[in-house]
Protein backbone atom coordinates (compact mmCIF):
# COMPACT_ATOMS: atom_id res chain seq x y z
CA UNK A 1 0.00 0.00 0.00
CA UNK A 2 1.13 3.49 -0.80
CA UNK A 3 1.22 5.70 2.21
CA UNK A 4 -0.34 8.97 1.17
CA UNK A 5 0.66 12.19 2.92
CA UNK A 6 -2.10 13.85 4.84
CA UNK A 7 -3.72 16.79 3.11
CA UNK A 8 -3.10 20.31 4.32
CA UNK A 9 -6.49 21.24 5.82
CA UNK A 10 -6.12 18.68 8.60
CA UNK A 11 -2.48 19.46 9.15
CA UNK A 12 -1.35 22.23 11.42
CA UNK A 13 0.57 24.90 9.51
CA UNK A 14 4.24 24.84 10.39
CA UNK A 15 5.60 27.85 12.22
CA UNK A 16 7.66 30.09 9.97
CA UNK A 17 11.19 29.06 10.93
CA UNK A 18 10.69 25.30 10.64
CA UNK A 19 8.92 25.89 7.32
CA UNK A 20 11.86 27.89 6.01
CA UNK A 21 14.25 25.24 7.28
CA UNK A 22 12.26 22.56 5.46
CA UNK A 23 12.46 24.54 2.21
CA UNK A 24 16.17 25.15 2.64
CA UNK A 25 16.91 21.52 3.49
CA UNK A 26 14.95 20.27 0.53
CA UNK A 27 16.70 22.67 -1.85
CA UNK A 28 20.16 21.81 -0.58
CA UNK A 29 19.45 18.08 -0.77
CA UNK A 30 18.08 18.29 -4.26
CA UNK A 31 21.03 20.32 -5.52
CA UNK A 32 23.51 17.91 -3.92
CA UNK A 33 21.78 15.07 -5.70
CA UNK A 34 21.98 16.89 -9.03
CA UNK A 35 25.73 16.97 -8.79
CA UNK A 36 26.38 17.91 -12.40
CA UNK A 37 24.30 21.05 -12.11
CA UNK A 38 26.21 21.94 -9.00
CA UNK A 39 29.60 21.72 -10.70
CA UNK A 40 28.78 23.14 -14.11
CA UNK A 41 28.70 26.81 -13.04
CA UNK A 42 32.00 26.35 -11.19
CA UNK A 43 33.69 24.79 -14.21
CA UNK A 44 32.24 27.58 -16.31
CA UNK A 45 33.66 30.13 -13.84
CA UNK A 46 37.17 28.70 -14.18
CA UNK A 47 36.90 28.50 -17.96
CA UNK A 48 35.78 32.12 -18.37
CA UNK A 49 38.68 33.29 -16.21
CA UNK A 50 41.06 31.18 -18.31
CA UNK A 51 39.79 32.85 -21.49
CA UNK A 52 41.28 36.21 -20.57
CA UNK A 53 44.97 35.23 -20.33
CA UNK A 54 44.54 33.16 -23.48
CA UNK A 55 42.47 35.68 -25.39
CA UNK A 56 43.74 39.07 -24.26
CA UNK A 57 47.21 38.83 -22.78
CA UNK A 58 49.09 36.46 -20.46
CA UNK A 59 51.28 39.33 -19.19
CA UNK A 60 51.41 39.34 -15.40
CA UNK A 61 51.00 43.11 -15.33
CA UNK A 62 47.78 43.15 -17.33
CA UNK A 63 46.36 40.28 -15.32
CA UNK A 64 47.16 42.01 -12.05
CA UNK A 65 45.33 45.14 -13.20
CA UNK A 66 42.36 43.35 -14.69
CA UNK A 67 42.20 40.33 -12.38
CA UNK A 68 39.52 41.57 -10.02
CA UNK A 69 37.32 42.61 -12.93
CA UNK A 70 37.85 39.31 -14.73
CA UNK A 71 36.89 37.30 -11.67
CA UNK A 72 33.85 39.49 -11.06
CA UNK A 73 32.63 39.19 -14.65
CA UNK A 74 33.16 35.42 -14.53
CA UNK A 75 31.28 35.17 -11.22
CA UNK A 76 28.43 37.22 -12.68
CA UNK A 77 28.18 35.05 -15.79
CA UNK A 78 28.28 31.77 -13.90
CA UNK A 79 25.59 33.01 -11.49
CA UNK A 80 23.50 33.88 -14.53
CA UNK A 81 24.03 30.36 -15.84
CA UNK A 82 22.87 28.73 -12.63
CA UNK A 83 19.79 30.90 -12.20
CA UNK A 84 17.74 29.00 -14.72
CA UNK A 85 17.52 26.04 -12.31
CA UNK A 86 16.42 28.16 -9.36
CA UNK A 87 12.69 27.62 -9.92
CA UNK A 88 12.55 25.46 -13.04
CA UNK A 89 12.66 21.99 -11.47
CA UNK A 90 10.16 23.03 -8.82
CA UNK A 91 7.96 24.51 -11.51
CA UNK A 92 8.03 21.40 -13.68
CA UNK A 93 7.41 19.06 -10.77
CA UNK A 94 4.55 21.09 -9.32
CA UNK A 95 6.44 21.87 -6.12
CA UNK A 96 6.25 25.55 -6.83
CA UNK A 97 2.46 25.55 -6.85
CA UNK A 98 2.52 23.90 -3.43
CA UNK A 99 4.94 26.55 -2.24
CA UNK A 100 2.59 29.30 -3.38
CA UNK A 101 -0.28 27.64 -1.52
CA UNK A 102 1.55 27.48 1.79
CA UNK A 103 0.13 29.51 4.68
CA UNK A 104 3.54 31.01 5.47
CA UNK A 105 4.39 34.34 3.78
CA UNK A 106 5.74 33.70 0.29
CA UNK A 107 8.27 36.46 0.88
CA UNK A 108 10.11 34.36 3.47
CA UNK A 109 9.90 31.14 1.49
CA UNK A 110 11.37 32.91 -1.56
CA UNK A 111 14.05 34.44 0.64
CA UNK A 112 14.95 30.96 1.85
CA UNK A 113 15.05 29.53 -1.64
CA UNK A 114 17.37 32.29 -2.82
CA UNK A 115 19.56 31.74 0.22
CA UNK A 116 19.74 28.06 -0.71
CA UNK A 117 20.70 29.02 -4.23
CA UNK A 118 23.44 31.29 -2.97
CA UNK A 119 24.80 28.56 -0.68
CA UNK A 120 25.29 26.18 -3.60
CA UNK A 121 26.42 28.69 -6.25
CA UNK A 122 27.71 31.91 -4.66
CA UNK A 123 29.59 30.41 -1.77
CA UNK A 124 31.59 27.91 -3.86
CA UNK A 125 32.58 30.79 -6.15
CA UNK A 126 33.98 32.69 -3.19
CA UNK A 127 35.86 29.62 -2.03
CA UNK A 128 37.31 29.17 -5.52
CA UNK A 129 38.19 32.85 -5.92
CA UNK A 130 41.55 32.85 -4.04
CA UNK A 131 42.86 30.02 -6.24
CA UNK A 132 41.91 31.84 -9.42
CA UNK A 133 43.18 35.08 -7.91
CA UNK A 134 46.62 33.52 -7.61
CA UNK A 135 46.37 32.35 -11.21
CA UNK A 136 45.80 35.92 -12.40
CA UNK A 137 48.69 37.15 -10.21
CA UNK A 138 46.64 39.15 -7.70
CA UNK A 139 48.52 39.84 -4.47
CA UNK A 140 47.24 38.64 -1.11
CA UNK A 141 45.62 41.93 -0.14
CA UNK A 142 43.66 42.21 -3.37
CA UNK A 143 42.50 38.62 -3.03
CA UNK A 144 41.21 39.30 0.47
CA UNK A 145 39.30 42.37 -0.70
CA UNK A 146 38.04 40.49 -3.73
CA UNK A 147 36.61 37.75 -1.53
CA UNK A 148 35.04 40.35 0.75
CA UNK A 149 33.32 42.10 -2.16
CA UNK A 150 32.18 38.76 -3.57
CA UNK A 151 30.78 37.88 -0.17
CA UNK A 152 28.73 41.08 -0.18
CA UNK A 153 27.95 41.05 -3.88
CA UNK A 154 27.08 37.49 -4.89
CA UNK A 155 23.95 37.34 -2.67
CA UNK A 156 22.77 40.49 -4.48
CA UNK A 157 23.32 38.68 -7.78
CA UNK A 158 21.22 35.76 -6.54
CA UNK A 159 18.43 38.01 -5.26
CA UNK A 160 18.17 40.13 -8.41
CA UNK A 161 18.56 37.05 -10.58
CA UNK A 162 15.66 35.36 -8.79
CA UNK A 163 13.34 38.11 -10.06
CA UNK A 164 14.41 37.41 -13.63
CA UNK A 165 14.21 33.65 -13.16
CA UNK A 166 10.68 34.00 -11.80
CA UNK A 167 9.61 36.29 -14.63
CA UNK A 168 10.92 34.02 -17.38
CA UNK A 169 9.65 30.80 -15.82
CA UNK A 170 8.01 28.52 -18.36
CA UNK A 171 9.02 30.59 -21.38
CA UNK A 172 10.62 28.88 -24.32
CA UNK A 173 13.75 31.00 -24.74
CA UNK A 174 14.08 31.67 -21.03
CA UNK A 175 17.89 31.49 -20.83
CA UNK A 176 18.76 34.28 -23.23
CA UNK A 177 15.82 36.41 -22.11
CA UNK A 178 16.94 36.03 -18.51
CA UNK A 179 20.38 37.40 -19.37
CA UNK A 180 18.82 40.29 -21.24
CA UNK A 181 16.62 41.24 -18.29
CA UNK A 182 19.14 40.75 -15.54
CA UNK A 183 22.51 41.98 -16.82
CA UNK A 184 21.51 45.66 -16.75
CA UNK A 185 20.52 45.28 -13.10
CA UNK A 186 23.82 43.55 -12.33
CA UNK A 187 25.97 46.40 -13.63
CA UNK A 188 25.97 48.50 -10.41
CA UNK A 189 27.07 45.48 -8.35
CA UNK A 190 29.88 44.83 -10.80
CA UNK A 191 31.00 48.48 -10.74
CA UNK A 192 31.15 48.70 -6.94
CA UNK A 193 32.62 45.21 -6.58
CA UNK A 194 35.57 45.83 -8.87
CA UNK A 195 35.81 49.46 -7.73
CA UNK A 196 36.53 48.35 -4.17
CA UNK A 197 39.45 46.15 -5.17
CA UNK A 198 40.88 48.82 -7.49
CA UNK A 199 40.58 51.52 -4.84
CA UNK A 200 42.24 49.26 -2.28
CA UNK A 201 45.04 48.60 -4.78
CA UNK A 202 45.72 52.31 -5.10
CA UNK A 203 45.61 52.75 -1.34
CA UNK A 204 42.39 54.77 -1.36
CA UNK A 205 39.69 54.56 1.30
CA UNK A 206 37.26 51.76 0.49
CA UNK A 207 34.73 52.37 3.24
CA UNK A 208 32.29 54.11 0.92
CA UNK A 209 32.48 51.31 -1.66
CA UNK A 210 31.81 48.65 0.95
CA UNK A 211 28.98 50.74 2.36
CA UNK A 212 27.40 50.97 -1.10
CA UNK A 213 27.74 47.23 -1.63
CA UNK A 214 26.20 46.65 1.78
CA UNK A 215 23.37 49.03 0.90
CA UNK A 216 22.75 47.12 -2.33
CA UNK A 217 22.66 43.89 -0.33
CA UNK A 218 20.13 45.28 2.13
CA UNK A 219 18.02 46.71 -0.68
CA UNK A 220 18.07 43.39 -2.55
CA UNK A 221 17.32 41.44 0.62
CA UNK A 222 14.31 43.55 1.49
CA UNK A 223 12.81 44.32 -1.93
CA UNK A 224 13.82 41.56 -4.36
CA UNK A 225 11.84 38.73 -2.65
CA UNK A 226 8.65 40.83 -3.01
CA UNK A 227 9.20 41.24 -6.72
CA UNK A 228 10.15 37.57 -7.05
CA UNK A 229 7.04 36.45 -5.19
CA UNK A 230 4.84 38.65 -7.40
CA UNK A 231 6.57 37.33 -10.52
CA UNK A 232 6.14 33.71 -9.37
CA UNK A 233 2.42 34.22 -8.89
CA UNK A 234 2.16 35.69 -12.39
CA UNK A 235 4.18 32.87 -13.97
CA UNK A 236 2.32 30.09 -12.19
CA UNK A 237 -1.11 31.55 -12.92
CA UNK A 238 -0.05 31.83 -16.55
CA UNK A 239 0.78 28.15 -16.99
Amino acid at each position, binding site marked *: MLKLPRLTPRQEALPILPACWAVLRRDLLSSIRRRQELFNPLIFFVMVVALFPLGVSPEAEFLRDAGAGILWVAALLSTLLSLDHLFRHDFEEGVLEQLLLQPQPLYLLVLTKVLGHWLVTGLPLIIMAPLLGVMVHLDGNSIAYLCLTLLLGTPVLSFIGAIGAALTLGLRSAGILLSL*LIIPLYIPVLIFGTGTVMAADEGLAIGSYLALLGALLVLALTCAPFATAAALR*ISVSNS
Partner: protein
Amino acid sequence: MWAFFHKLGSPKWFYGIAGRFMPWLLVSGLLLLGVGVVWGLAFAPQDYLQGNSYRIIFIHVPTAFLAQSVYVMMAAAGVITLVWRMKLADVFVKAVAPVGAVLTFLALFTGAVWGKPTWGTWWIWDARLTSMLILLFLYFGVIALGNAIADEKSAARAVAVLTLVGVVNIPIIKYSVEWWNTLHQPATFKLTEKPSMPAEMWVPLLLSVLGLYLIFGWLACLRMQTEILHRERRARWVRELVNV
Protein backbone atom coordinates in the same frame (compact mmCIF):
# COMPACT_ATOMS: atom_id res chain seq x y z
CA MET B 1 -14.06 62.62 -11.12
CA TRP B 2 -14.69 58.92 -10.54
CA ALA B 3 -16.74 58.71 -13.71
CA PHE B 4 -13.71 60.04 -15.54
CA PHE B 5 -11.51 57.29 -14.12
CA HIS B 6 -14.03 54.64 -14.97
CA LYS B 7 -14.23 55.91 -18.53
CA LEU B 8 -10.46 55.92 -18.70
CA GLY B 9 -10.61 52.18 -18.23
CA SER B 10 -12.58 51.79 -21.43
CA PRO B 11 -10.43 51.39 -24.53
CA LYS B 12 -13.24 52.52 -26.79
CA TRP B 13 -13.71 55.77 -24.92
CA PHE B 14 -9.98 56.39 -24.92
CA TYR B 15 -9.78 55.70 -28.63
CA GLY B 16 -12.28 58.48 -29.30
CA ILE B 17 -10.87 61.04 -26.89
CA ALA B 18 -7.28 60.44 -28.05
CA GLY B 19 -8.38 61.03 -31.63
CA ARG B 20 -9.79 64.40 -30.63
CA PHE B 21 -6.67 65.51 -28.74
CA MET B 22 -4.07 64.26 -31.19
CA PRO B 23 -4.16 67.05 -33.82
CA TRP B 24 -3.74 69.65 -31.06
CA LEU B 25 -0.86 67.76 -29.50
CA LEU B 26 0.90 67.39 -32.81
CA VAL B 27 0.45 70.97 -33.99
CA SER B 28 1.40 72.61 -30.69
CA GLY B 29 4.29 70.17 -30.22
CA LEU B 30 5.72 70.80 -33.68
CA LEU B 31 5.29 74.52 -33.19
CA LEU B 32 7.08 74.63 -29.84
CA LEU B 33 9.82 72.24 -30.91
CA GLY B 34 10.29 74.12 -34.17
CA VAL B 35 10.55 77.50 -32.47
CA GLY B 36 12.83 76.10 -29.75
CA VAL B 37 15.18 74.32 -32.13
CA VAL B 38 15.39 77.11 -34.72
CA TRP B 39 15.88 79.73 -32.02
CA GLY B 40 18.46 77.59 -30.29
CA LEU B 41 20.39 76.54 -33.37
CA ALA B 42 20.34 79.82 -35.25
CA PHE B 43 19.76 82.75 -32.88
CA ALA B 44 20.86 81.86 -29.37
CA PRO B 45 24.23 83.37 -28.33
CA GLN B 46 27.43 81.34 -28.45
CA ASP B 47 28.65 79.65 -25.32
CA TYR B 48 31.68 81.40 -23.80
CA LEU B 49 33.41 78.06 -23.30
CA GLN B 50 32.17 75.66 -25.95
CA GLY B 51 31.42 78.07 -28.82
CA ASN B 52 28.87 76.77 -31.25
CA SER B 53 29.24 73.09 -30.44
CA TYR B 54 27.04 73.46 -27.36
CA ARG B 55 24.04 74.01 -29.65
CA ILE B 56 23.35 70.29 -29.78
CA ILE B 57 22.04 70.79 -26.25
CA PHE B 58 18.73 71.84 -27.85
CA ILE B 59 18.33 68.29 -29.15
CA HIS B 60 20.35 66.33 -26.59
CA VAL B 61 18.68 67.59 -23.42
CA PRO B 62 15.05 67.13 -24.58
CA THR B 63 15.69 63.54 -25.72
CA ALA B 64 17.63 62.62 -22.56
CA PHE B 65 15.01 64.26 -20.36
CA LEU B 66 12.14 62.48 -22.06
CA ALA B 67 13.95 59.13 -22.22
CA GLN B 68 14.04 59.07 -18.42
CA SER B 69 10.57 60.43 -17.82
CA VAL B 70 9.05 57.92 -20.25
CA TYR B 71 10.51 55.17 -18.10
CA VAL B 72 9.07 56.75 -14.96
CA MET B 73 5.68 57.00 -16.68
CA MET B 74 5.95 53.32 -17.61
CA ALA B 75 6.71 52.42 -14.00
CA ALA B 76 3.71 54.44 -12.83
CA ALA B 77 1.57 52.64 -15.39
CA GLY B 78 3.09 49.39 -14.07
CA VAL B 79 1.79 50.17 -10.59
CA ILE B 80 -1.65 50.84 -12.06
CA THR B 81 -1.53 47.52 -13.94
CA LEU B 82 -0.58 45.57 -10.82
CA VAL B 83 -2.95 47.26 -8.41
CA TRP B 84 -6.02 48.22 -10.41
CA ARG B 85 -5.56 45.94 -13.45
CA MET B 86 -6.45 48.82 -15.75
CA LYS B 87 -6.18 47.71 -19.37
CA LEU B 88 -5.09 51.08 -20.68
CA ALA B 89 -2.05 51.26 -18.42
CA ASP B 90 -0.75 48.12 -20.04
CA VAL B 91 -1.57 49.43 -23.52
CA PHE B 92 0.43 52.53 -22.63
CA VAL B 93 3.50 50.56 -21.52
CA LYS B 94 3.43 48.40 -24.60
CA ALA B 95 2.98 51.40 -26.89
CA VAL B 96 5.68 53.66 -25.48
CA ALA B 97 8.48 51.21 -24.61
CA PRO B 98 9.96 51.29 -28.15
CA VAL B 99 9.58 55.09 -28.21
CA GLY B 100 11.54 55.28 -24.97
CA ALA B 101 14.24 53.03 -26.38
CA VAL B 102 14.59 55.24 -29.46
CA LEU B 103 14.75 58.40 -27.32
CA THR B 104 17.45 56.84 -25.13
CA PHE B 105 19.42 55.89 -28.22
CA LEU B 106 19.06 59.42 -29.59
CA ALA B 107 20.22 60.89 -26.28
CA LEU B 108 23.29 58.63 -26.30
CA PHE B 109 23.98 59.38 -29.95
CA THR B 110 23.66 63.17 -29.68
CA GLY B 111 25.74 62.96 -26.50
CA ALA B 112 28.47 61.17 -28.43
CA VAL B 113 28.34 63.81 -31.16
CA TRP B 114 28.62 66.50 -28.49
CA GLY B 115 31.36 64.64 -26.67
CA LYS B 116 33.67 64.50 -29.67
CA PRO B 117 34.41 68.26 -29.89
CA THR B 118 34.21 68.98 -26.14
CA TRP B 119 35.86 65.94 -24.55
CA GLY B 120 37.79 64.76 -27.61
CA THR B 121 36.15 61.32 -27.55
CA TRP B 122 32.95 59.72 -28.79
CA TRP B 123 32.42 57.57 -25.75
CA ILE B 124 33.75 57.37 -22.25
CA TRP B 125 32.72 55.10 -19.39
CA ASP B 126 31.42 57.97 -17.36
CA ALA B 127 28.70 57.40 -14.75
CA ARG B 128 25.98 59.33 -16.58
CA LEU B 129 26.75 57.66 -19.91
CA THR B 130 26.91 54.18 -18.42
CA SER B 131 23.66 54.59 -16.53
CA MET B 132 21.94 55.86 -19.69
CA LEU B 133 23.26 52.78 -21.51
CA ILE B 134 21.74 50.64 -18.74
CA LEU B 135 18.45 52.46 -19.35
CA LEU B 136 18.63 51.45 -23.02
CA PHE B 137 19.20 47.81 -21.97
CA LEU B 138 16.26 48.07 -19.56
CA TYR B 139 14.01 49.23 -22.39
CA PHE B 140 15.22 46.30 -24.51
CA GLY B 141 14.45 43.92 -21.64
CA VAL B 142 10.94 45.31 -21.20
CA ILE B 143 10.22 45.00 -24.93
CA ALA B 144 11.67 41.48 -25.12
CA LEU B 145 9.74 40.22 -22.08
CA GLY B 146 6.51 41.69 -23.38
CA ASN B 147 6.99 39.92 -26.70
CA ALA B 148 8.03 36.60 -25.14
CA ILE B 149 4.89 35.97 -23.09
CA ALA B 150 1.97 34.94 -25.26
CA ASP B 151 -0.85 35.55 -22.77
CA GLU B 152 -1.72 39.23 -22.77
CA LYS B 153 -2.63 39.58 -19.10
CA SER B 154 0.42 37.76 -17.70
CA ALA B 155 2.65 39.65 -20.12
CA ALA B 156 1.26 42.92 -18.82
CA ARG B 157 1.85 42.02 -15.18
CA ALA B 158 5.29 40.53 -15.75
CA VAL B 159 6.36 43.65 -17.66
CA ALA B 160 4.95 45.80 -14.86
CA VAL B 161 7.09 43.98 -12.28
CA LEU B 162 10.17 44.35 -14.47
CA THR B 163 9.67 48.09 -15.07
CA LEU B 164 9.22 48.62 -11.35
CA VAL B 165 12.45 46.77 -10.57
CA GLY B 166 14.31 48.76 -13.22
CA VAL B 167 13.12 52.11 -11.92
CA VAL B 168 15.95 51.87 -9.35
CA ASN B 169 18.19 53.01 -12.19
CA ILE B 170 16.43 56.36 -12.66
CA PRO B 171 17.74 58.07 -9.51
CA ILE B 172 21.17 56.65 -10.34
CA ILE B 173 21.06 58.38 -13.73
CA LYS B 174 19.70 61.56 -12.21
CA TYR B 175 22.28 61.89 -9.47
CA SER B 176 25.24 60.21 -11.20
CA VAL B 177 26.73 63.59 -12.10
CA GLU B 178 26.52 64.74 -8.52
CA TRP B 179 27.58 61.55 -6.74
CA TRP B 180 30.57 60.87 -8.96
CA ASN B 181 33.08 63.40 -10.16
CA THR B 182 32.92 62.67 -13.82
CA LEU B 183 33.24 64.41 -17.14
CA HIS B 184 29.54 64.94 -17.71
CA GLN B 185 28.33 68.38 -16.70
CA PRO B 186 25.69 68.73 -13.98
CA ALA B 187 22.04 69.22 -14.79
CA THR B 188 21.28 72.23 -16.96
CA PHE B 189 17.82 72.72 -15.50
CA LYS B 190 16.50 72.58 -12.03
CA LEU B 191 12.91 73.24 -11.14
CA THR B 192 13.83 74.80 -7.84
CA GLU B 193 16.62 77.16 -8.89
CA LYS B 194 17.08 80.04 -11.23
CA PRO B 195 18.89 78.82 -14.37
CA SER B 196 22.54 79.76 -14.49
CA MET B 197 22.52 80.53 -18.18
CA PRO B 198 21.05 83.57 -19.92
CA ALA B 199 17.40 83.60 -20.88
CA GLU B 200 18.24 83.53 -24.61
CA MET B 201 19.67 80.07 -24.01
CA TRP B 202 17.27 78.47 -21.56
CA VAL B 203 14.01 79.71 -23.06
CA PRO B 204 14.53 77.89 -26.38
CA LEU B 205 15.72 74.84 -24.45
CA LEU B 206 12.56 74.87 -22.34
CA LEU B 207 10.46 75.31 -25.49
CA SER B 208 12.05 72.31 -27.20
CA VAL B 209 11.63 70.15 -24.08
CA LEU B 210 7.93 71.06 -23.88
CA GLY B 211 7.54 70.58 -27.62
CA LEU B 212 9.06 67.12 -27.50
CA TYR B 213 6.77 66.21 -24.59
CA LEU B 214 3.75 67.20 -26.64
CA ILE B 215 4.97 65.28 -29.67
CA PHE B 216 5.59 62.30 -27.42
CA GLY B 217 2.00 62.66 -26.22
CA TRP B 218 0.80 62.57 -29.81
CA LEU B 219 2.96 59.56 -30.64
CA ALA B 220 1.82 57.73 -27.49
CA CYS B 221 -1.84 58.35 -28.40
CA LEU B 222 -1.25 57.17 -31.95
CA ARG B 223 0.52 54.00 -30.87
CA MET B 224 -2.05 53.32 -28.15
CA GLN B 225 -4.85 53.68 -30.69
CA THR B 226 -3.16 51.13 -32.93
CA GLU B 227 -2.64 48.75 -30.02
CA ILE B 228 -6.28 49.17 -28.94
CA LEU B 229 -7.53 48.40 -32.45
CA HIS B 230 -5.38 45.30 -32.48
CA ARG B 231 -6.53 44.07 -29.08
CA GLU B 232 -10.20 44.84 -29.59
CA ARG B 233 -10.24 43.60 -33.16
CA ARG B 234 -13.11 41.25 -32.35
CA ALA B 235 -15.21 43.90 -30.65
CA ARG B 236 -18.18 45.28 -32.51
CA TRP B 237 -17.20 48.93 -32.31
CA VAL B 238 -13.87 48.19 -34.00
CA ARG B 239 -15.54 46.27 -36.79
CA GLU B 240 -17.99 49.10 -37.36
CA LEU B 241 -15.14 51.61 -37.27
CA VAL B 242 -13.10 49.71 -39.82
CA ASN B 243 -15.99 48.91 -42.13
CA VAL B 244 -17.14 52.51 -42.49
